């Protein structure tokens, strides 16, 4: 008998006859919920046993534990063989083609609870939640013409964090998933390979996971209305996993993705990427009022500060800095999809024009209004749809090497950095009071020195910087600019990994 079996047997011995009978009844039909290999089924069973012990040690009565962990929450998902598959959406098609060893487009969303996480309970929350997201419970496969996502029904595991954040996910092995779930102290983090979803979809997932974890911990929620919180026991529908790009009407004009190379920050590129993650945490109210004082939105205000900080982090005296800004297409087209549904635009500014904040705000606002407009995005989508359609019958073996080189030359070099702002995330009050904050960060870029992302939750805005250079100029300048505008900021993050 292995350690867990002995541990569980000892735990059973400590219970009353009635409690033991309740648990025996709980596991009576266990096997019928899993059409998996016997070893996989045993691991699922051990997950439940460990969760029972963890909850019991917190004083939860056995009867209530079995109610919270009810196997009906599995919904027969693991009892059926996997038959689903998903072609990649238009924007995801480029990610597996352009990835290389050590380079992968991914992002990470974390939730910080007010108490340390019980990993045994979080594992069950993951097992219950993943069934609601069938397009996430998949493995990336290579077709003759395109990659696709193949459904896998296996145990997705929660692991303790002990590596550099946002490391490429190993998607090569049979049945390997394209996301990972990590925990460390009071934080749970989901890292997604971009083929699966975008920031909005990732947020829907992590919110559902956090809500399920808190339910298992005994938190009751009266209403979820207005919070886009998915009930994990609802049946997934087609529109939640559609390729929403296909619904967009094509325009006659189509704008390309090609632009002039942008000036890069000068810091030396690190060997380990990212070499540091920093979170600048600030009160949302203060940020909002600072932005308003310049007549700007939060995104425009952050872009303004980023241009100032980026110009300080480069020795170039001429040229243009360019910041890539993802645009959530859901604000233009109503859809429930949690697959990728975002495009991007590039906000450019000559280094010589960087200086006066008011002028910069006006210029950025005007560029953003024009470049992130529905019409511009529609043109870009039209271009992407035409490109995908033109390439659809060319074997992957031919288009992959070409695409990889084109992406290497043009993809990232037309930008100096990125700002992805997920906006304000909300949860019902009963859940929010158990959550301290959230953060969102992007994976390490290939050529850019850093990438930035922002998210607001519970009155705290977290501006995260994924760094590829030891040069501290950018973050120090950002801090001083925020402080100049009266925004008190505290800095959290990782150690510098290359030391």
């Amino acid at each position, binding site marked *: 008998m292995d350690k867990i079996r002995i541990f569980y047997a000892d735990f059973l011995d400590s219970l009353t006859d009635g409690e033991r009978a309740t648990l025996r009844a709980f596991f009576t039909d266990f096997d019928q919920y899993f059409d998996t290999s016997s070893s996989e089924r045993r691991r699922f069973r051990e997950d439940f046993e460990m969760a029972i012990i963890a909850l019991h040690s917190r004083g939860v009565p056995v009867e209530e534990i079995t109610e919270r962990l009810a196997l009906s929450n599995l919904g027969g998902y693991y009892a059926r063989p996997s038959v689903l598959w998903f072609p990649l959406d238009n924007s995801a098609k480029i990610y597996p083609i352009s990835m290389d060893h050590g380079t992968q487009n991914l992002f990470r969303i974390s939730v910080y609870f007010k108490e340390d996480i019980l990993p045994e309970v979080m594992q069950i929350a993951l097992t219950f939640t993943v069934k609601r997201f069938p397009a996430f419970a998949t493995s990336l496969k*290579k077709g003759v013409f395109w990659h696709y996502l193949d459904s896998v029904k296996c145990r997705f595991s929660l692991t303790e964090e002990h590596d550099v954040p946002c490391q490429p996910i190993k998607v090569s092995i049979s049945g390997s998933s394209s996301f990972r779930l990590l925990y460390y102290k009071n934080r749970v983090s989901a890292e997604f390979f971009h083929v699966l979803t975008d920031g909005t979809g990732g947020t829907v997932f992590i919110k559902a996971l956090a809500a399920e974890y808190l339910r298992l911990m005994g938190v009751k929620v009266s209403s979820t209305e207005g919070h886009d919180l998915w009930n994990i026991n609802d049946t997934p529908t087609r529109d939640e996993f559609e390729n929403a790009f296909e619904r967009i009407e094509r325009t006659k004009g189509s704008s390309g993705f090609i632009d002039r190379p942008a000036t890069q920050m000068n810091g030396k590129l690190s060997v*380990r990427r990212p070499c540091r993650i920093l979170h600048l945490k600030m009160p949302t109210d203060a940020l909002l009022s600072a932005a308003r004082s310049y007549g700007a939105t939060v995104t425009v205000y952050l872009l303004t500060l980023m241009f100032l900080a980026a110009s300080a982090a480069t020795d170039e005296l001429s040229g243009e800095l360019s910041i890539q800004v993802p645009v959530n297409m859901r604000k233009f087209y109503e859809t429930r999809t949690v697959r990728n549904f975002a495009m991007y635009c590039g906000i450019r500014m000559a280094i010589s024009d960087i200086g006066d904040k008011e002028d910069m705000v006006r210029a950025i606002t005007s560029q953003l209004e024009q470049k992130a407009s529905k019409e511009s995005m529609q043109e870009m989508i039209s271009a992407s749809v035409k490109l995908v359609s033109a390439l659809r019958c060319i074997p992957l073996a031919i288009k992959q090497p070409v695409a990889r080189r084109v992406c290497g030359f043009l993809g990232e070099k037309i930008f100096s950095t990125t700002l992805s702002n997920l906006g304000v995330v909300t949860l019902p009050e009963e859940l929010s009071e158990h959550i301290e904050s959230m953060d969102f960060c992007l994976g390490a870029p290939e050529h850019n020195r850093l990438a930035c992302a922002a998210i607001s939750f519970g009155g705290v805005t977290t501006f995260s910087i994924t760094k590829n250079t030891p040069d501290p100029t950018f973050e120090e300048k950002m801090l001083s600019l925020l402080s100049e505008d009266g925004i008190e900021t505290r800095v959290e993050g990782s150690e510098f990994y290359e030391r």
Partner: protein
Amino acid sequence: MNVNITYPPIKRGSFLRRRLLRILRWPFILAAIACVVINVCIGGVVWSPIAIVGLFAVWKMVLSPDLVDYNRTSQFIKTVVYILILLAMIELLIVPGWAAFVIPIVGFTGVAIGGVLFFTDMETQKHNMLPLVLFLVFAIIGSTIGLTLWHEKNFWPFIVLDSVSVLLLLALIIVLGGDFLRELKRRFHIK
């Protein structure tokens, strides 16, 4: 700048394939160039293309393996294909007259081992069957052409390769049933 460290310390000295590839790329390129230069300078048989394909095979199979679909079926089939290409090149460039006999033997050995690797872990490998199916199709076409070209000689290896490939393909179709068609539909989608 005061940073409150909220991430765990990481394991030091972890393997960075990206760095290794960046370092090893140049010795590989230099070795390939050196092969050509030495071959041209010394003269004699043209062996440098074989050495270059060998270097490429080592690079793709060992140092820079597939990022998607890295599994025993695909890796084994790839290995067999590289061996077959190298054998064909040796026949063409160095010692002619034996490959039409040896290549089908290597081919049907590959088919047989591929079949064993597939059927001993069918539940997982059924999602990885495409390389095997393509290999079988090419083996059938190749052996049929071989039999047509050399039918007057005693080239039994082609007959064995043809029959083993057809049988294995039929076995795959029968055993996998609907899964076979579903898998092909996914692999050949153009959506």
